[in-house]
């Protein structure tokens, strides 16, 4: 029944089913009714982790090292627990920044570095290629085995199989087609591939079902359950211990092998599988890029481990059963899964298991090639293309087709390379050891990525050095020896070290013993990687762009919400330029849709817009990042943005601004203190003003009262005698004049204070001013019988100023002097002195004098010298204030010298005309 035709039909029929499921998934997604948007499908898609290595290889490894296959699955279980924390962060970051691959993630974190993106891609391709080859080998082996049913072939050589006659080759081509159809549907790699995920989930169900069916058949049909099987194995072990064994120490089936290093190996396998579940390109693809909803992680973190547990529970029984069935060791343990049902003549079961193995292999190959093709296109090819002169691309206006072509070609290329690898080198190695090499390679991403999302201090240079160091050690300890195995390098290299240097033996570097080759490589490469990453990061300062990205990645949860606006760009761009850039990479339709979305969200109308602001530029960069990767997107956007991006200077400016803010707050504190002080002074002034008003009104009332009472006397006594009448009216006139003077004074004061005084500046002679002033105060002086004498210089230099105001000053000084002199004994002398620069006038009296502490106050507003013995001072107190203002206006000085009881001298000095004119020339 199991003829080649049937097998081929079933194989290709299965592939057809996959195409159908994927097509259906995509159709549902287009209709907006996703079939993958639930945690169960998500968890199943994570199970792409279980490849042909799991399906076939675990049994092989179990035969060699007992439970040694388990850490590969317990590691991811542990990581899933921690993953809720790590994955969530990675997923959030990737969604915000439209990150499409692990290379993009690392490049983006370290300042969108093209170098880093390229390096990660190269490591990923070199590291994962053997792993893809392993899957193809499994498909090929499976076919070759089942094709010879019912005979179980013990050995076959792949190199004898002609490529064109190898079904695995055609399967590989079909897989490439599948990946192209369902993995490169959209240009925007950050969009999900729903059909692909649906197919992967389906494959996960098939491989689990196949393995469980086989396990149940082996355990409960061939044998009588676990107990029976283990008992038989133990008996065999006991038996074999006495003789020679083809499968090594059988006792180790029941335990871990007793050698000293086994716990170390176990621990290291646990460690690298923990990293692999995050850093394998295909895991990143299904976990992060294809994630529909962060909440799905909630269930996935226990559903996925449950899947791993289920697919492993029968590994040991199958292994034992295989050893019991083929005790002579003629059959490769890696094929027990298929050879057992064949040996039992179970055609259908064998076919089912074969399909299960194929589903495990194809699922991995599809997702891995898609993930790698995105990386190759966005992080290797695009950066090179974008740096080529524009003519090279033949003036292509729309690059979207080109992009898709690059991705499709890379898919085919990766698959072909994988196939070639498997044909040349792959057959020398067991499934597991190839897979572990890949794990060790992708583990190199861990320091840069985990460090990148939890430690802001990690720098681009550090990441590059760490990756390079780790990768070189990995190459030396794991890849170079495979060349020895393939006969390309002499055997001496491994056994005696290069050039006979024992310390450099690739499996015992620096003499490290007791590790198996993978553990040994992981230890040294991780040590080098972490050492360089941390060391260089600490020693070398990061560049400006890295600060922003580091903060955005590490504090993603703090910024999210508004983070879609990560403002790297400070400049603006010409909108048509930006638009044509988008059209070039996304195509007209997608660009229109994306821009319409943006306009909707921000309530914009494109018709009024000519320039794109920083916000829109960032939005465009993210759109591009989804299509061509973050670093290329940055280069392209930089070509249309007018201003420089955030350079070190801007960062320093930001720091400066911060510093300024601190300075401002200090100034604010000072200003507050100043304000409080000002307020206190205002309150003082307010109080003084009140006093002033009461003084002024008092001053006004006195003459008013006398005017009024005299007027009343005259009114009620019309027949008053002539002399008295004359004297009364004289007093009324004088008091009215005094009133007028007072009111004028207040008005003048008001004018000066509000700077509305009209000044009439002329060249005048001080002598004249003094004479005028003395003349206008003669009555006042004579009333009190005070003597006044003037010592005037005949020809003082002229001064320029307002004559009337200066007279007013002198009148004020003289009337002040009169006020404070005793009647009859008073003596006032006015002196005028001058030199080339200034003219000085002194008005000396022999009055009561002023106390030293009051001398400074008398020129200030509203200040009156209070003398308790004399009660309320005489005068309003504004005369001197007005005088000071007038003198100040003339650039002069006014001051007083006084001794209480002996009189005071008020003096003022004014610059001469020549002096005042000079500064003007």
């Amino acid at each position: 029944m199991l003829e080649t035709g049937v097998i081929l039909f079933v194989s290709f029929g299965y592939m057809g089913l996959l195409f159908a499921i994927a097509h259906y998934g995509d159709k549902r997604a287009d209709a907006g009714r996703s079939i993958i948007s639930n945690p169960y499908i998500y968890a199943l898609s994570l199970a792409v982790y279980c490849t042909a290595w799991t399906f076939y290889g675990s049994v092989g490894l179990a035969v060699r090292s007992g439970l040694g296959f388990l850490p590969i699955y317990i590691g991811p279980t542990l990581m899933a627990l921690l993953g809720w924390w790590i994955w969530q962060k990675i997923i959030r970051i990737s969604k915000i920044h439209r990150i499409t691959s692990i290379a993009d993630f690392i490049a983006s974190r370290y300042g969108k570095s093209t170098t880093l993106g390229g390096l990660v891609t190269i490591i990923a391709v070199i590291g994962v290629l053997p792993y893809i080859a392993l899957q193809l080998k499994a498909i090929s082996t499976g076919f070759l085995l089942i094709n010879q049913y019912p005979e179980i072939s013990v050995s076959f050589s792949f190199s004898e199989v002609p490529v064109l006659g190898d079904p695995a080759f055609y399967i590989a081509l079909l897989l490439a087609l599948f990946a192209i159809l369902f993995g490169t549907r959209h240009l925007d790699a950050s969009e999900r591939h729903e059909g692909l995920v649906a197919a992967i989930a389906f494959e996960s169900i098939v491989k689990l079902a196949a393995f469980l069916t086989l396990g149940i058949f082996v355990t409960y049909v061939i044998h009588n359950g676990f107990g029976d099987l283990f008992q038989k194995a133990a008996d065999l072990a006991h038996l074999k211990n006495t003789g020679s064994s083809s499968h090594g120490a059988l006792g180790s089936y029941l335990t871990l092998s007793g050698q000293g290093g086994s716990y170390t190996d176990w621990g290291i396998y646990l460690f690298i599988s923990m990293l692999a579940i995050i850093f394998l390109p295909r895991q990143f693809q299904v976990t992060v890029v294809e994630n529909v909803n962060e909440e799905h992680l909630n269930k996935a973190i226990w559903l996925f481990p449950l899947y791993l547990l289920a697919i492993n529970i029968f590994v040991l029984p199958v292994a034992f059963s295989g050893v019991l069935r083929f005790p002579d060791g003629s059959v490769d343990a890696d094929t027990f899964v298929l050879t057992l049902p064949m040996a039992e003549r179970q055609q259908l079961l064998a076919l089912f298991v074969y399909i299960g193995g194929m589903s495990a292999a194809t699922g991995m190959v599809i997702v891995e090639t898609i993930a790698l093709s995105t990386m190759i296109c966005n992080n290797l090819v695009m950066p090179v293309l974008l740096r080529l002169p524009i003519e090279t691309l033949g003036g292509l206006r729309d690059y979207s087709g080109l992009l898709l072509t690059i991705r499709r070609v890379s898919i085919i290329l990766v698959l072909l390379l994988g196939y070639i690898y498997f044909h040349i080198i792959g057959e020398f190695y067991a499934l597991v050891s190839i897979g572990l090499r890949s794990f060790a390679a992708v583990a190199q991403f861990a320091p840069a990525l985990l460090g990148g999302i939890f430690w802001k201090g990690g720098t681009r240079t550090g990441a590059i050095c760490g990756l390079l160091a780790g990768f070189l050690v990995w190459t030396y300890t794991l890849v170079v020896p495979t060349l020895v195995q393939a006969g390309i390098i002499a055997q001496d290299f491994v056994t005696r070290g290069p050039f006979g240097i024992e310390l450099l033996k690739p499996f015992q570097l620096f003499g490290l013993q007791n590790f198996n080759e993978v553990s040994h490589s992981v230890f040294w490469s991780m040590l080098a990687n972490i050492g360089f990453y941390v060391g260089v990061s600490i020693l070398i300062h990061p560049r400006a762009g890295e600060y922003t990205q580091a903060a955005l990645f590490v504090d993603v949860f703090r910024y999210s919400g508004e983070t879609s606006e990560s403002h790297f760009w400070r400049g603006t761009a010409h909108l048509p330029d930006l638009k044509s850039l988008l059209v070039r990479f996304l195509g007209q339709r997608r660009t229109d849709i994306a821009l319409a979305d943006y306009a909707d969200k921000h309530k914009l109308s494109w018709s009024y817009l000519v320039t794109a602001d920083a916000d829109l530029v960032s939005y465009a960069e993210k759109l591009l990042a989804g299509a061509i990767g973050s670093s290329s997107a940055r280069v392209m956007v930089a070509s249309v943005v007018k201003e420089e991006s955030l350079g070190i200077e801007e960062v320093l400016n930001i720091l400066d601004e911060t510093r300024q803010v601190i300075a401002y707050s200090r100034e604010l504190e000072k200003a507050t203190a100043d304000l409080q002080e000002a307020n206190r002074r205002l309150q003082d002034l307010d109080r003084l003003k009140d006093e002033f008003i009461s003084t002024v009104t008092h001053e006004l009332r006195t003459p008013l009262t006398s005017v009024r009472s005299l007027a009343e006397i005259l009114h009620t006594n019309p027949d008053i005698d002539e002399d008295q009448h004359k004297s009364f009216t004289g007093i009324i006139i004088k008091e009215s004049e005094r009133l007028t003077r007072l009111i004028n004074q207040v008005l003048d004061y008001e004018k000066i204070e509000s700077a509305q005084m009209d000044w009439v500046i002329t060249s005048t002679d001080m002598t004249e001013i003094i004479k005028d002033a003395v003349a206008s105060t003669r009555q006042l002086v004579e009333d009190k019988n005070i003597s006044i004498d003037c010592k005037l210089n005949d020809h003082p230099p002229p001064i320029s100023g307002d004559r009337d105001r200066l007279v007013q000053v002198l009148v004020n000084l003289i009337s002040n002097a009169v006020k404070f002199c005793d009647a009859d004994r008073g003596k006032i002398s006015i002196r005028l002195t001058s030199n080339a620069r200034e003219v000085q006038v002194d008005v000396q009296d022999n009055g009561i004098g002023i106390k030293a502490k009051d001398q400074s106050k008398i020129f200030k507003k509203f200040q009156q010298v209070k003398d308790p013995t004399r009660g309320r001072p005489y005068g309003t107190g504004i005369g001197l204030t007005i005088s000071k203002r007038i003198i100040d206006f003339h650039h002069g000085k006014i001051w007083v010298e006084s001794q209480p009881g002996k009189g005071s001298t008020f003096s003022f000095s004014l610059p001469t005309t020549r002096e005042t004119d000079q500064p003007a020339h």
Partner: protein
Amino acid sequence: MTPKDRKNKRLVGLFLLGCVLFNYPLLSLFNLKTMIFGVPLLFFYVFTGWTVLILLAAITTKARGHSPSKSEDKTVR
């Protein structure tokens, strides 16, 4: 402390527990050539521990912060 933080802490706790359970030296205590319920002791220990760990994880994620995903499930169906 939000329920989310609490869940986070519990899961990290489970992770550390797993690291201890499935590593030297605890592993070596069960690495004996003894059978229990008809299966090797180490086999029994690892798979039981694994199952318990998954159960605890399921309980932890169900306990709190599951309401959004639950309501979201309904909308999907």
